[in-house]
């Protein structure tokens, strides 16, 4: 790839990540918001958004603002995931100060390969939150429903397992009243076992009943029963995302 193209894909990824971060549950993000975020002129933001729109990453409208397409969402998740995994690595393993990990990770995220990302995730034992602002690390795009398969298959020398087609979203990022289907549960055996016992098996439809304020628990309706899940648990329960807010 020529240097200019590398640069442009880097900034495209930055834009996608910014839109994902600024958007509240898939709501459109205004161009001025993005320009404020990057501290650059709205005109250059518009130019970039049009380019992203041409490539099918963004639905751009100068009046309503921009939303991510499914393709754009996937790309944004990927780069966000790499970013936050790197932050964890820098903080937990290299003991770099929490105030510095963000800038450092911004530099590294673009050059981290997918394989390295998977290894990093296993090495860090499937972390769920980033160290500086406790944001959720998105799920990986391997076609698994729990982390244990990843570990088991890796031991046998992780063959070609393909990629997950759907986009995943943590139930922490869902509004109350939303219906969804469980796709992936991250985390340790004990919690996973408990969630399975309570009926939250992969493939099960759930409904978000209500979300407690102040980062409180999330109440889901599953198999006719109502179960409250604390933020720490809910952050690791992923459902298929129905991108486009409706």
């Amino acid at each position, binding site marked *: 790839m020529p240097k200019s193209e590398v640069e442009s894909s880097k900034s495209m990824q930055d834009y996608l990540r910014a839109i994902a971060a600024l958007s509240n549950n898939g709501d459109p993000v205004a161009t001025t918001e993005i320009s404020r975020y990057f501290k650059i002129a709205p005109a250059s933001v518009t130019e970039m958004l049009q380019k992203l729109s041409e490539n099918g990453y963004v639905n751009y409208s100068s009046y309503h603002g921009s939303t991510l397409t499914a393709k754009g969402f996937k790309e944004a998740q990927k780069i966000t995931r790499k970013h936050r995994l790197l932050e964890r690595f820098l903080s937990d393993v290299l003991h770099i100060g929490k105030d510095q990990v963000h800038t450092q990770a911004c530099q590294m995220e673009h050059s981290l390969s997918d394989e390295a990302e998977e290894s990093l995730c296993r090495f860090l034992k499937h972390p769920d939150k980033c160290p500086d602002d406790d944001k959720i690390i998105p799920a990986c795009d391997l076609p698994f429903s729990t982390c244990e*398969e990843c570990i*088991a298959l890796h031991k046998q020398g992780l063959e070609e397992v393909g990629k997950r087609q759907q986009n995943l979203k943590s139930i922490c990022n869902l509004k109350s009243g939303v219906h969804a289907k469980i796709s992936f549960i991250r985390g340790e055996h004990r919690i996973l076992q408990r969630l399975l016992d309570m009926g939250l098996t992969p493939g099960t439809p759930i409904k978000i009943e209500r979300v407690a304020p*102040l980062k*409180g628990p999330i109440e889901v309706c599953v*198999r006719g*029963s109502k179960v409250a899940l604390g933020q720490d648990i809910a952050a690791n329960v992923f459902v298929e995302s129905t991108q486009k807010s409706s």
Partner: protein
Amino acid sequence: MSCHSNSASNFKKQKNNGKNLTIALAGNANVGKSVLFNQLTGSSQIIGNWPGKTVDKAEGALTFEGQKITVIDLPGIYSFSTFGMEELVSREYIATQNPDAVINVVDAAVLERNLFFTMQLIEMDAPLVLCLNQVDEAKKKGITINRKKLEQLLGVPVVPTVAIRGEGIYELTKTALNVTRDRQNHKSHLRYGAEIEQRISKLDQTIQNANLNLNYPSRWVAIKLLENDPEIKKLVASSESVNKASEALAAEISAIHHEPSFAVIASERYGLASKIASEVQRQAEVRTTISDRVEWITTHRVLGYVTSAAVIAGLLVWTFSIGSLLSGLFSKGLSFFSPVNPALSGSIQGILWNGVWGGVVASLTLIIPFVVPFYLMLAMIEDSGILTRVAFMMDSAMHKIGLHGKALIPMILGYGCNVPAIRACRIMETKRERLLATFAITFAPCAARTIVILGLVAVFLGPWWALSLYVVDIALIFILGRIALKVVPGQSTGLIMEMSSFKVPSLSVVARQTWARTKSLIYIVVPLYIAGSVIVQALYAVGVLQQVSNALSPITVFWLGLPAIAGILLILGFVRKEMVLLAAVAIFSSTNLALFFSPVQLVTLALVNMIYIPCLSTVAVLAKDYGWKTAAVISVANFAVAILVGGIAFRLLSLVL
């Protein structure tokens, strides 16, 4: 029945010939097992509308048509997988104690989730009766269940009940008795999908060939091994053939489904449960019920906190206002008879008379009026289901002291009595969290401490002073909780809690509960007071108490600013916290303590009594659950905090009062 379990079935037959039968109650948390247990045995096992209140198995007796039956109430669990202690206790009980029948209590409104556990009981070859409980509540939610079809699909007799009103209990008992007589008739034929089932049978065969002499049915062991259950793996560790086969077969299952084998089996089991549930139940449209609306309020982003605070504060305000009203009435009534004559003090007759009468007056005016309304309200709160809402709303606040929302439930119970509250801490998932919650509870002012706060502060200085002591206490719990978190580091578990459904508290349940709790007080504590007050009077007359108090005066008089006699009061308070108040009444031969203590002293004494040491029974429970060392550390911590806070309070209060 296949040959491998011959020894077990012989054992069961022998037991059947005996006179006493055993029936165990098993099922998910909060489905009404304890209600049913009380109905069957006439006992007053504490019940409440929140998951996890039965932590130990309870035992009761029942005679049904001449047959003596022992009934066992097992703790509520969702599965036989080893998540916590309760699961292990329950499955070991069913496997090794061989109850003659197991009544699986099921919440009819949440059939699918409950059937997941039923399947596991069936896998365990338990002699089963399905008790379809709360069919009335299910009906309100528009759910009706085809009983005959459910019986057919499960191969287990099904009895619909409304345990709370005693409906269906007769039929249930009768059916359970039938099951104890011919259990073979109820063998089930529930089977999983082919690729799982083949491997279960294969492993089952290997286990039978290995002759391991297990307590559990071999098919169940096979399933558990495929689920990678660590405890069961230990059981078969001696047999290499079984180990090898189970690992190979588990790997095969996970390869087919791209999921770990335990998740595959859980999914399959839920698949079956879901299929059965959808075949037998019909869901009609229902309109928004009142409970839905109450639910909306209790979990609203603003109103939710208001209701949570109202539950906690309301319990205390209610106790205070009703308590002081009743206490006033009783005192007026009793003063009419009052024979207390200070001139009599000193003579043996006088000591006896003043002691007995002082004890009676203190119990009637200071204890009963406050404890009964308190327990009444606590029972209503417990039964309404609001506790899980409070836990839901307060989860993020509780995280600040390293706990999750569920810990608030035992803490609220701690306002009643620390002992059951500490036991209720078993609803917490890890030992560390149980310990943190327990530590916090030892600072929660129980009913006994409330009595002292009321008798010393509310009566003489007004209810607002008394309530402010609680505010100080809650702040202390928070600060000390933060400190404890630093002392006991570790990972905290997140909240996973089933929300109980809302209901109007049942009058009979509330009345029974209040009576059960008050009863123990009247039977044990009141005689103790009367006897204790005689002894205290006698010792005072002889002059022993004064010597002890003088020895403690550096702390009590110099640092806390209390009269020297407070030393002896606090020593007695260690036995039971109410003793502080009672002994004061006995020593001064008067309930008008304002004559002997200044306002500052009253508040300081109540404050110190609130925190200085858990009472004897609490220390005993602490030692039993956590060991003597932990009990000692917690007690010393309590004592140090009390002395520190008491001394500061004395100095600050002296400026105001």
